[in-house]
């Protein structure tokens, strides 16, 4: 394939994904318990009054922003980590970040800190939990001198196990309603009421994308394996360290704000790779867009499918994503 043809194909992929994202946003804005016609949307937004406006401005729009930021980040992070570790099973949560964040939130819930000090302490303690995990994994696996990616992976998995056992310990000594809070927090939700938190998430995810994109060439080289990349003159250690820190912080932020939304970081990069190819220059933006679209649609399903009840988004991403993945794998095998 000539260079020009490849770039044209990339451009088409990105345009199609952006169009799909736009369509998902409109769909997500209009569907809900209070149906809002697309044709009325402009006048409602213009009037700035009424229940419809409140619903759009306070419920649906913040959820869309959060879906774009969280879905994009998780999916892009998955794509990068799968490349660095050359392991298709790695996802943002594999390195123990979600476990650390969940442990932080559980401690907060059990100690009732958020009741005494305000709801913002929940995401804050989640983020502190994630930060501690990141430090531990970093220093245990790449503190001094050489490090191996396999060691890092194992460290992450072990930290996850330790964190989840500690969480089970906390749950076994706490009240039924606290256990309930912890479980629902773990299942994930995009229903966040703190606007500054949503903005923080959105800007960080964009910044994270830009930083990661600067490493697209290095990532392409790393895909050959860390050893080979080093022989090709790449300071692979530095690249991996920087990406690990940036992406871990982002993942920690995602988990603190939206809970643990599984499968996105695992499935979407794989699907996108089938469509867009595995060159990181196209894989990164399309994974980001793909993750945003996927989460947004899943969230729309979660809040409407058994309305007036609402489902945790993790339920939908797991079921839809899992089936989608199996189907794609099956088709790929037979063709």
């Amino acid at each position, binding site marked *: 394939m000539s260079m020009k043809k490849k770039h044209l194909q990339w451009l088409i992929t990105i345009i199609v994904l952006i169009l799909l994202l736009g369509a998902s946003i409109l769909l997500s804005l209009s569907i*809900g318990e*209070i149906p809002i016609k697309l044709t009325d949307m402009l006048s409602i937004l213009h009037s700035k009054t009424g*229940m419809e406006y*409140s619903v759009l401005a306070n419920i649906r729009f913040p959820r869309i922003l959060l879906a774009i930021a969280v879905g994009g980040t998780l999916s892009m992070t998955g794509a990068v980590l799968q490349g660095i570790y050359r392991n298709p099973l790695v996802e943002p949560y594999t390195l123990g970040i979600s476990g650390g964040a969940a442990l932080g939130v559980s401690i907060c819930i059990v100690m009732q800190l*958020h*009741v005494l000090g305000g709801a913002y302490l929940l995401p804050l303690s989640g983020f502190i939990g994630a930060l501690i995990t990141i430090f531990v994994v970093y220093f245990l696996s790449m503190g001094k001198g050489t490090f191996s990616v396999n060691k890092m992976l194992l460290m992450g998995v072990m930290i996850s196990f330790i964190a989840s056992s500690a969480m089970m310990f906390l749950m*076994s000594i706490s009240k039924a309603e606290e256990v309930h809070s912890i479980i629902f927090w773990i299942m994930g939700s995009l229903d966040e009421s703190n606007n500054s938190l949503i903005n923080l998430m959105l800007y960080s995810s964009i910044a994270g994308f830009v930083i990661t994109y600067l490493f697209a060439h290095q990532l392409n080289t790393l895909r050959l394996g860390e050893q080979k990349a080093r022989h090709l003159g790449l300071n692979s250690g530095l690249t991996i360290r920087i990406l690990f820190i940036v992406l871990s912080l982002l993942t920690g932020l995602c988990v603190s704000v939206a809970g643990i939304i599984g499968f996105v970081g695992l499935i979407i990069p794989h699907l996108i790779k089938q469509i867009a190819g595995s060159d990181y220059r196209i894989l990164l933006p399309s994974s980001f867009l793909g993750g945003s679209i996927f989460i947004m649609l899943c969230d729309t399903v979660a809040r409407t499918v058994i309305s*007036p*009840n609402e489902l945790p988004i993790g339920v939908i991403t797991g079921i839809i994503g899992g089936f989608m993945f199996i189907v794609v794998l099956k088709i790929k095998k037979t063709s």
Partner: protein
Amino acid sequence: MPLFTMAQPFNRIVSLAPSLTMNVYYLDSKQKLVGCTSFCEIAKPDKKEIIGSATMVNIEKIVSLKPDLIVATLITKPEVLDKLRKLGIHVEVFSSPKDFNGICSQFLRLGMLIGKAEKAKAVIAESKANVDKIKAQHKGVAKQKIFFQIGSNPLFSVLSNTFMNDFILFCGGINIASEMHSGTIGRESVLKRNPDAIFIVTMGVAGDDEKAIWQRYGELSATKRKQIFIIDSNQACTPTPLSFVYTLEMINKLLYPKK
């Protein structure tokens, strides 16, 4: 009801739930309680032996206390209760009461088991009289739509076949979730039903933060009427006749301050 219990009431009780411990206290029988859970606040000053929690029961500890009666709720695993029965201890299970009458009949049942039937009847009669007083106030008064929220993220609503639904009915209200069968409810669904009053039960949630979220919706009837209230879960969620009346009176006062 086994007859022998009336002839010979139980004298060494272990309670596996805070609400049951409270009922034992309200029946003037705290001296009969030999063990309770670590969450039984009412028993804290008396330094009763702790046997774990409703979900994590220390069976050996219970046996060492030599109880003749164990009172439990459905939260405790049936395997645990079976084991206790096999050890020859009488186990009474109290399911979650479906309404105020259910609370009363369970209270009476406990009273009969521990030889305090008369006391139980007296407490129930007084509680019913207080409840009737409040019910009578709302004859012919326009009904308010009420959202009774337990927890946030996700929002949970009080459902119609629970004793907490009676708080709404007895105050002349309509539960906005009366037709629902499972408690999670989307914020949009609440807005669509446009409740006139919202009660937030502080069950492990920051009540003030939840209140602030609802106040953002200026069109919501509850916001317009300034009827968004925070309620203490220790009283509201505990099925005892006394805490039921206490919570009901508080809710009634919040909804109708003039009466």
